[in-house]
């Protein structure tokens, strides 16, 4: 067989492989369109002139692109305020959850102690309490102690689900780091805390960041607690978005513009944290 024939044969088989894979690609493209179209539509809505939104015909690209909705969002509606509120609540929730969870996860991963399994189960089952079950008593309690309608009310209520989840994730990551690493350091005279700070923490940082990204996102996105526990002054983005639905109809232009601005930071965070996060989420499951 000459070289030319061989290369033609290879090309032919590659073409056949492509043909065999084609239905899969078509399916993939169809699914991606389904998953991404709502975002395209939200974006297009946010850059349409007001008139065109409620026009006779639906347009798939604005006849005249305008950023009026974005401008109005900040000038008339002061969207910066809920953004800063969300940033504050999400950041503090992240720091508090990570600190508390890292300590607990370390104990669960590195010590065998009486009641270990009981406490682990305690944290695990936490995830099961319905949001609405906690919502009601927390509302009554926070009202009584006078922190209702302050950021602390939200931060505290978010820890109800971020702490158990973070412990679970961080425990999985820690289990993957062999204990012999610290042992070696401790043989060399470091104490446990030093061994943790010098050896484990640097290796764990990407995982802590991924967990933090997850916590930040859940706090940033949360609505059910936020709508009950905040008022005009400290409402967060999700509540602000919902407020575009008024008595006289919906401000779709501003709403979609606000939506686009909301998801950009979490998307960026997630592109970076994604790999570690999925590793952590599947850690317990895949090992089994």
């Amino acid at each position, binding site marked *: 067989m000459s070289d030319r024939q061989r290369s033609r044969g290879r090309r032919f088989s590659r073409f056949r492989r492509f043909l065999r894979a084609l239905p899969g690609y078509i399916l*993939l493209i169809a699914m991606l369109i389904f998953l991404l179209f709502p975002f395209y539509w939200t974006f297009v809505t946010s850059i349409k002139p007001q008139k065109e939104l409620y026009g006779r015909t639906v347009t798939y690209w604005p006849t005249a692109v305008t950023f009026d909705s974005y401008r109005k969002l900040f000038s008339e509606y002061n969207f910066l305020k809920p953004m800063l509120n969300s940033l504050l609540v999400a950041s503090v929730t992240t720091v508090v959850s990570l600190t508390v969870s890292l300590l607990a996860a370390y104990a669960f991963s590195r010590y065998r102690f009486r009641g270990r399994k009981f406490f682990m189960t305690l944290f695990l089952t936490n995830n099961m309490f319905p949001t609405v079950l906690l919502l009601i008593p927390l509302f009554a309690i926070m009202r009584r102690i006078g922190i209702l309608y302050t950021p602390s009310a939200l931060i505290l209520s978010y820890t109800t689900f971020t702490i158990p989840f973070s412990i679970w994730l961080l425990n999985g990551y820690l289990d993957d780091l062999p204990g012999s690493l610290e042992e070696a350091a401790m043989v060399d005279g470091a104490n446990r805390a030093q061994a943790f700070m010098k050896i484990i923490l640097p290796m764990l940082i990407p995982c802590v960041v991924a967990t933090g990204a997850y916590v930040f996102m859940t706090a940033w996105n949360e609505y*059910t607690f936020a709508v009950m526990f905040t008022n005009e002054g400290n409402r967060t983005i999700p509540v602000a978005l919902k407020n575009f639905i008024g008595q006289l109809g919906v401000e779709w232009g501003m709403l979609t513009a606000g939506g686009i601005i909301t998801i950009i930071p979490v998307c960026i965070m997630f592109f970076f944290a*994604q790999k570690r996060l999925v590793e952590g989420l599947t850690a317990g499951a895949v090992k089994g």
Partner: protein
Amino acid sequence: MYRRKFSPWPYLLIAPALIVIFAVVFFPVLNAIFMSFQSYDLRRPSQIRFTGLANYVAAMHDPLFWQALIKTVIWVSVGVGLQFVFGFLLALLLNRKFPGRGIVRSISLIPWVTPGVLIGLMWRWIFDGNYGVLNDLLMRLGLIHDKIPFLAQQSTAFPSVILTIIWQGIPFFALMLLAGLQGIPEELYDAANVDGANAFQRFFMITIPSLKNTIFVTTLLRIIWVANSVDVIFNMTEGGPAYSTQTLSVYVFNKANTLNLGYASTMAILLALALALVAVPYLKTLFKAQEESK
């Protein structure tokens, strides 16, 4: 390295987490149980008193409670079921090598990181009866002749919100299952090929059993999340029209908004019990599987 003798350290390390969780979860849950035995209505604060099982009896006689329970079962089973099917499909499609796979994988994740409120509102706009793009697309394709008010009529509202929750859940399943798929050793498939197994057999004899635990954890998490989710439905329909999209979570939320906290707590507890009924056997099996593998 694990010390046999008693050490206070592990207890001190878990103490902060434990204290927070007791304060914001266990104490409130006890509070909710307590409130469920009271006529706790903040609109009539002077009449708050112990009423025994009255709220539970009322729930049993409340047709809306039963309707919401049935809606929840459909919402969770159809919602999570189809999330799983399409998520698995997407995972299998993404598990092949092709240029740009990393980017495709990342962008298909976006629905998962989108706030529930925004998801609800985006789809509400898509489903809109007057200016909605779905109506326009269906009309252009010649599938319908008149615009359908998807979220405003009882027959279409519930399927519409279910479609939305499916859309939200596909990426999560896809990512988790994809990670699981990539953990399956290639040799297993090679061995099966030698034995002459076809694609169908390979899928059911190797892929599914290897992913058993991933499937387990992922579906459990999603069942809990979807059953508890309020934001998507509330922002699309608020439970209407005529309560046709009112799941138990949404019902409790609506009741809590009217400040009838006693009755709302009662239903929230019943929801938690229903969830436990599903989750406990689930967790037991999982724990057993993990113990065996250790």
